[in-house]
């Protein structure tokens, strides 16, 4: 099993090191064999929208910060963690394994969301 991570914008490679080393692998876009499904989550007004999403395994979720205050996307279980996203910056993560992935903004912890992978 492997988890593919697509990193958008200026996210440094170091982000990948924060993932579980045994399960994570960084690929440059376009090397995947099939085009995975993609889902967008917008960060607006200090909230994730939609706050809960349900997706099939293999889907890539991309978060975009549309606030003029920086936010982060951090898994409660430290499975994924974005760098600090300033206005219009994005973070993507591909969920390959079914399960429930609660996450939050580590700067504004009242901001919470959840990805359910079927």
């Amino acid at each position, binding site marked *: 099993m492997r988890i593919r991570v697509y990193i958008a914008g200026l996210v440094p490679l170091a982000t990948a090191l924060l993932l579980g080393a045994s399960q994570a692998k960084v690929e440059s876009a376009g090397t995947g064999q099939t085009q995975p499904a993609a889902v967008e989550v917008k960060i607006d007004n*200090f*909230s994730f929208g939609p706050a809960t999403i349900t997706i099939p395994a293999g889907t890539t979720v991309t978060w975009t910060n549309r*606030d*003029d205050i*920086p936010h982060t996307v951090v898994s409660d279980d430290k499975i994924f963690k974005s760098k600090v996203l*300033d206005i219009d910056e994005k973070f993507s993560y591909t969920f390959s394994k079914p399960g429930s992935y*609660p996450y939050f903004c580590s*700067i504004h912890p*009242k901001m919470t969301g959840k990805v359910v992978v079927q």
Partner: protein
Amino acid sequence: MTKTKDEILYDHHHDGIDRRGFLKCMAWAGTGALCVMQGGVLKSYALNRAGDPALPAAAKSELSFVQISDSHMGFNKPANPDVAGTLKAAVDKINALSSPPEFLLHTGDISHLSKPAEFDTVDQILKATGKETFFVPGEHDVLEDDGKQFLERYAKNSKGAGWYSFDQKGVHFVGLVNVMNLKAGGLGTLGHDQLEWLEGDVKHLKSSTPIVVFAHIPLWTVYPQWGWGTEDSALALGYLKKFGSVTVLNGHIHQTMQKVEGNVTFHTAASTAFPQPAPGKAEAPGPMKVPAEQLRSVLGITDVNYVRGHHALAVVDSTLA
């Protein structure tokens, strides 16, 4: 006691919490108000146009210092495209005070994105005060590196994530850090190590010692829905119960507010960068855009004076307008 037009008198001896007086203080905060507690009575005075409080026996203070907060250097969005300019205006205001402060406290969010150049700019601007500044970090100052850069720059001799204490003219100052290791769904956090340190730090002080605690996120629950509070602040305040005068100075919410609870006066300072909405008055606590000509009237500095023999420190907010 007589009651004059610009004065609120309210007795705290019985319930300890004065919601009415608190709300009145809040209503005045935008235009500048002085709230001072003497002998268990909260007095609030509106400021005149020159920004001077209409105090009967104006302070022959023994210790005067200024709190500034939330300079957010690096922020450049419409709510304030020139945060360096407004920080300079705050410095001009400080330099023009009739009783010069001994030092400054900065209650965090020095930078917007923890970038070295942002910290450098603030340091450069604050130099013009010629005063020492004591800092505690805001969440914007400890992005990415667990606060290592903040510690290196501003808190070399501190404990843990940057907490410390010092004494000035008989007043004990405690700088606390409540922006690290925040948990999903939670508020600000002090954490076990810091609380243990605080207990030991104040244990041997005389109960007559005036205490000033400063930290970024409010140490009282202003509005938990927006994260405006600190999970374990009650434990910290528990260690300060024996003291006759405790003044808590916070930032984070970009507006002035004051509350008195028993012997503790809580106060939040305005930002020098941009205002945020009153609790619950907007969908989210983001930067609030006001007409450009009004911006400086919602930014400000806080001047604090200690007069020996008085029950509490006098806290005066003034805007940058």
